[in-house]
């Protein structure tokens, strides 16, 4: 067809235009739907099924249906409860500090200065590099004998003895949280920077004319206008951090003595190291339920804030 067809009258199509349009729309969705079906939906049903079986990879002879057996075992597993506690420390420690420093970073990066674009890109680096790279970098910084952190702290007189940060039950969690904070600051910086740029200048100008000081402007203009983006970014970050296993897995493997074992790394350990798929399945279902509860809560909170389209 060419643009000349404008003049020729259309014949009535066999299937009405509306239905056809609908069919085209659906057909565009098929590939994406298949992708999610094969890699998310079906596996979730698999996980639920697995959780009802005694299914240890290297003990195929013991494979049998045990109903809620894995869940009952989970309830009596002190490590599981410990991982939930650790997850709370990990999530709220990480997200709170990421938010505070990320907000400060956003306010700084919003100022006009020479080389701003370069500084913005450079400060985003920790966020875009692979988790395993972050873990290895910090493992090296924390290294007891050759790590630069101990050396600097001793040099400046903050400590007198070397600390084995990642193998000490007292410091390991703080050490991985700090690493995660380093990694996550840019996320909040980007999100909040985008929010700050959307605040109309006239508001600040008007407030200034009315005699509002810099803190009062921040409190009465910046914060309220950023509220939607603060809620959305914090909520997604909480869920994401709760699920995030790479960093701890690389840095401590959950140790020492489960001091840094969070629920997601525990699930990973069961599936990857212990090869206890039944138990891993039960843990996955628990993770899923917690995640769905979070998401439901998040959607309720953001309802009205975020409307697609």
């Amino acid at each position, binding site marked *: 067809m060419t643009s000349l067809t404008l003049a020729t009258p259309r014949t009535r199509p066999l299937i009405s235009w509306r239905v056809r349009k609908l069919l085209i729309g659906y057909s565009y969705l098929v590939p994406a739907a298949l*992708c999610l079906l094969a890699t998310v939906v079906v596996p979730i049903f698999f996980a639920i099924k697995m959780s009802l079986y005694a299914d240890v990879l290297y003990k195929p002879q013991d494979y049998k249906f045990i109903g809620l057996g894995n869940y009952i075992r989970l309830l009596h597993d002190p490590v599981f409860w410990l991982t939930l506690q650790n997850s709370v420390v990990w999530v709220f420690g990480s997200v709170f500090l990421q938010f505070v420093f990320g907000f400060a970073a956003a306010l700084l990066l919003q100022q006009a200065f020479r080389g701003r674009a370069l500084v913005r890109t450079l400060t985003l680096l920790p966020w875009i590099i*692979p988790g395993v790279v972050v873990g290895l970098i910090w493992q090296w910084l924390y290294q007891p004998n050759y790590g630069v952190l101990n050396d600097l702290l001793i040099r400046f007189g903050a400590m007198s003895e070397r600390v084995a940060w990642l193998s000490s039950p007292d410091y390991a969690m703080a050490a991985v949280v700090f690493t995660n904070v380093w990694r996550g600051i840019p996320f909040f910086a980007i999100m909040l920077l985008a929010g700050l740029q959307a605040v109309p200048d006239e508001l600040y100008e008007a407030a200034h004319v009315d005699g509002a000081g810099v803190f009062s402007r921040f409190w009465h203009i910046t914060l309220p206008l950023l509220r939607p983006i603060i809620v959305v970014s914090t909520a997604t970050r909480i869920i994401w951090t709760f699920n995030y296993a790479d960093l701890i897995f690389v840095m401590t493997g959950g140790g020492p003595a489960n001091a840094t074992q969070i629920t997601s790394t525990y699930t990973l350990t069961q599936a990857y190291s212990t090869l206890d798929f039944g138990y891993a399945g039960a843990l996955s279902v628990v*993770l899923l339920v917690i995640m769905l509860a979070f998401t439901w809560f998040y959607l309720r909170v953001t309802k009205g804030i975020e409307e697609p389209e």
Partner: protein
Amino acid sequence: MSTARRHAPKDTLERLLAGPVVWIGLVLLTAFALGPFIWMLLTSLKNRQELYATPLQYLPVHPTFENYVEAWTSPVTPFSRFFLNSLWVCSVTMVATTAVSVLAGYAIARFRFAGRDALLLIFLATQMFPSVLLIAPLLTQWRALGLIDTYQALIYSNFSFTVPFTVWMMVGYFSSIPRDLEESAMIDGCNHFGALVRIVLPLAAPGIAATAIFAFVVSWSELLFAISFTTETNMRTLSAGLLYMVGQYEVQWGQLSAGVILSTVPVAVLFSFLQRHLIHGLTAGAVKG
């Protein structure tokens, strides 16, 4: 906004905040973000003696690239192979994800159909899905299909986290393109697909590029699927390979730091090109406009 503020006189507090406080803050921020990288870069340039010197030697006196050469050519931990594996897995993931999400994003942005909102919610919820949850079932699934130690297993698995996000990104981009252009193209006799290819795609090109880069960067970081679905050293991706280097013998920090730098450079370069678009895409779902 700084231009707007310039019209009004500044008070002392504000001048202080805009001057020294901002500068000190920026220096600290940049140093904190880059310090660990710089330390890793310095480490990678040191020879063994300098690396394990006591007291700690901060700068490499005789900078050397031998760590890079060793990492790249090592027969035990073939970093060059890891690199190519990652390149292939991420490229295919990127192309497939982009194609899939362009179609789906366009459909969601342009067609009204039953279950549209539910579908959007599903895409949003699956973005939050923990990869750990999928490892055991996907492993069973790929084993049943004979896909262990194949690129396909890694590429398909990557869809689980790339597609939900990129569809969401594409919906945002397509919604920001006015409908009138396609409608007039369709009146001129283009069919839907023609209008998509000739009118919408060129307009959405920056957004599509950003989506593609995003898919590449997140797959580049993927670790858990890579270690779970591959057993052969030759099939490991960069992330999995780096971890494998740690597990091999006593940690070779020289080679490892070289590996870390080599794994960082590609994503850093890609990201710096598309930073603006990517940021727009990431925040498009959160802030309208």
